[in-house]
Each structure stands twice: as C-alpha cells, then as structure tokens.
C-alpha cells in the first residue's frame, strides 16, 4: 500500500509507492529531475530530504504528482 509519512524531526518524507504501478524507470527519472530540489534515497521506500526549508508535506505530494506527469 502507498503511504506518505512525514518525519519533522529528521526533516524528511518517507514515500512508499507501488513499484508495479509507477515503474522503476519513472521513479529513477523523477529522482534525477529532483536532484537540485532534494536528496532522495530509493531502496524499498523513497526517502526525500529537501535541500532548502521546503514544506515536507508539499514536496512529498508534488513528487507524487510529478510521477503522474512522467507516466503520461
């Protein structure tokens, strides 16, 4: 199941996405495009650490919308 968890203490967003639906290629592309915005660790979960003081909630959801755009 997909989930978004926000860790305000660690200042990171943990995204658990369905790989079968989004596809590894698309996720890797999105990580590459987000290089300047955030550091993203992709193993079983996606851990997004924003580079600036961006809204954690916003950056997580925007990343999901970006994935939808890439799937087009």
């Amino acid at each position, binding site marked *: *199941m*997909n989930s978004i968890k926000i860790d305000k203490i660690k200042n990171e967003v943990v995204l658990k996405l*369905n790989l079968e*639906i989004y596809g590894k290629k698309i996720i890797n592309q999105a990580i590459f495009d987000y290089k300047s915005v955030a550091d993203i660790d992709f193993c079983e979960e996606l851990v997004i650490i924003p580079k600036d003081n961006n809204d954690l909630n916003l950056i997580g*959801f925007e990343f*999901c*919308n970006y994935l*939808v*755009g890439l799937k*087009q």
Partner: protein
Amino acid sequence: MEIENLNILKDHIEIKYNSKIYSQEMIFSAAYILTDKAYIIIDGDIKTGLIVKIWSKEKIDSKNLKKLAYDFNDELLNCQVYENQSTKNGKLREIMLKRALISNMTPITKSKEKNDSKEDDYLEDEKDILIPWEEKYGK
C-alpha cells in the same frame, strides 16, 4: 447519487476502479488532468483493481472532496472514450496519412520533369541566336 467505490476519509478520498473496465494508462491520463487541482497517488493491484487517492490542494470540506472525485470520474470517462474512438479510427487515420504523404511526393517529381523540359527548350535555338553573324550572313 452515490458511487459505491468511493471512500471518503479525513483529508482525502479514495476511489477504486476495476482494471478490466478502466486501463492503467487511462487512470494516469485522468489523474494528470487533475494534478493542478489535487495531489494524486495511485495504488492497488494492476490485475484486480486500482485505487486512486485524491488530496485537494486547497482546504475543502467533504462535500467538495466528493465533487473532486466526481470530476475525476468525468475525466476518466472522457479519456476512455477518446481512447476507444482513436483505436476505432486508427486504421482510417493511418490510410489518410499515407495517402496525404504519397500525394505530396508525386508533384515534386512532376515539377522536376517540367523544369528539365524547360531547360531543354532553352537550349533549342529556334531563332538561330547561337549562330555567329559571319556564319549566318557570310561576312
């Protein structure tokens, strides 16, 4: 009117779709249209059914959240109908495109032939202009 597959939660809404009816591509197409209004995550199983989770970008009540879900349904239907029509008309479109490209190529060869014939006409010296004066009048 209530949709059975709709599940309204605290801050977002979940809609479940049968994969046999709506394809994954169409769900993504509809989701893309709504990305300026809402945040969307697609979950579930490709074989059985996909779950679309929608969060509004603005703070709205459950009534408006439901409206967002209906909007998503409409967009999904639009995308699916467009896809169905384009697959139906696909062959015809292909034939028309082929014909258009072929007919566009034919005049080029014809016009080239015409140009060649013009050059030939130019070389034909009907009024004997190319013959020197001495040769023509004997002086």
